[in-house]
């Protein structure tokens, strides 16, 4: 089943065209890694999926529901705010900078949105949240404030927080880039676990080893375009495009 379909996405910041006609389909349970040099538009692409950025042109379809499409004159039209919100909270997102809520304890960070947005009762969501915390190995931190956690712990809480909304798709924007090298492992482990549970995932990453091992498909972006895509095998062992080759060489 198709979880996500993008057709010919264009996005400009002022006069700078950052996405130049991206098309992409992701099926259920697939793990897609997006790699590419800085400024190539990877974050922007992810952010367009859940309307943190508004696209100028193209179509976005999430689980068969249209989020944005072009009208007969070719102008991009979004569905209503209410509808867009319902479509978008099926996608969880994990940010490079964690973006935990500093004024709430770990457990409150996790239960806030399910209670507020979905109206789930506290006594129902608390056990679920505790289960998620156990899963990311942070149950004993449930009453701590985020400022007391290491970067790796923060990011694992952020993952649990996103999962508490029971998303069908998880978006990761360089989830380990803000971490000390010795802390990336614990976050990658949690992500690996999710992949094993067949979560549909789109991961922007500089962790080539992770992309190679966990992703079913690797997409190389450069300068607002998808330059090359294929299995990790194809991209890492046998890249066809000179730009892909050059990028991979620079990553070694």
């Amino acid at each position, binding site marked *: 089943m198709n979880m996500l379909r993008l057709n010919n996405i264009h996005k400009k910041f002022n006069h700078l065209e950052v996405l130049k006609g991206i098309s992409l389909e992701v099926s259920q349970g697939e793990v897609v890694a997006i790699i590419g040099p800085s400024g190539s538009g990877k974050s922007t692409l992810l952010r367009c999926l859940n309307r943190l950025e508004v696209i100028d042109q193209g179509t976005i379809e999430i689980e068969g529901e249209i989020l944005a499409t072009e009208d007969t004159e070719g102008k991009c039209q979004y569905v209503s705010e209410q509808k867009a919100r319902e479509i978008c*909270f099926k996608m969880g*997102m994990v*940010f490079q900078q964690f973006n935990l809520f500093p004024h709430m304890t770990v457990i409150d960070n996790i239960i806030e949105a399910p209670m*507020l947005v979905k109206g789930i009762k506290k006594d129902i969501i608390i056990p679920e949240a505790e289960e998620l915390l156990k899963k990311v190995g942070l149950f004993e931190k449930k009453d701590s404030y985020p400022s007391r956690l290491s970067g790796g712990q923060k990011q694992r809480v952020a993952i649990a927080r996103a999962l508490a909304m029971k998303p069908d798709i998880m978006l990761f924007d360089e989830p380990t880039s803000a971490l000390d090298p010795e802390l990336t492992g614990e976050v990658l482990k949690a992500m690996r676990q999710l992949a094993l549970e067949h979560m549909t995932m789109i991961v922007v990453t500089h962790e080539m080893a992770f992309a190679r091992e966990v992703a079913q498909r690797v997409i190389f972006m450069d300068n607002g375009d998808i330059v090359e895509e294929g299995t990790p095998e194809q991209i890492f062992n046998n890249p066809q495009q000179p730009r892909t080759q050059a990028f991979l060489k620079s990553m070694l």
Partner: protein
Amino acid sequence: MEKIITMMGPMLDGVYVTLQMFFITLVLSLPLGLLLSLARISKYKPISFLVETYIWLMRGTPLMLQLLFVYYALPLVPYIGIKLPDFSAAILAFVLNYAAYFAEIFRGGIQSIERGQYEAGKVLGMTYVQTMRRIILPQVLKRVVPPISNETITLVKDTSLIYVLAMNDLLRTARTIVQREFDMTPFVIAAVFYLAMTLVLTWVFNKLEERYAAYDE
């Protein structure tokens, strides 16, 4: 000693007027200031422009002038002009003025919250209003405690401006007695009262800061 006790009667009446001015102004101008700050950052340009102009007027002219205007000039305005009793006029002028200052403090607080907090709320499915109420404003409150505390202590002393409307607040009462009895004691008593009030406020705001220290950023 006996003299002091006979002074205390009118002095306490003055304290009462001062306290009333202080608390009513504070209770009304804080929420109004918050509303104004939200309007000030609104996407709707006419609204934010209107509020910006309002804040400029209120901060750009002396509070004393505003006080005199509300009391003496407002009744002369055609159609809407009403003659307010002195106490109401004073409250109106103070609330309008302090709300403008508080609005700027709240705005600074709101704009100091990282964009990532809004984005986190949004991707979790929260509406703008939910994000504001549950995520942004609680963090803003922590950050604005120190400047609000400053403004509040200034308000204690600003209340003495109402003497221009011939209202018998603490300071005017003190002056009246001093002029009548050629005795400086009332000034000392007034000073002690203002200092005590400031002390209490400092304590309250310190407690607030301590409570918010539960989480650091």
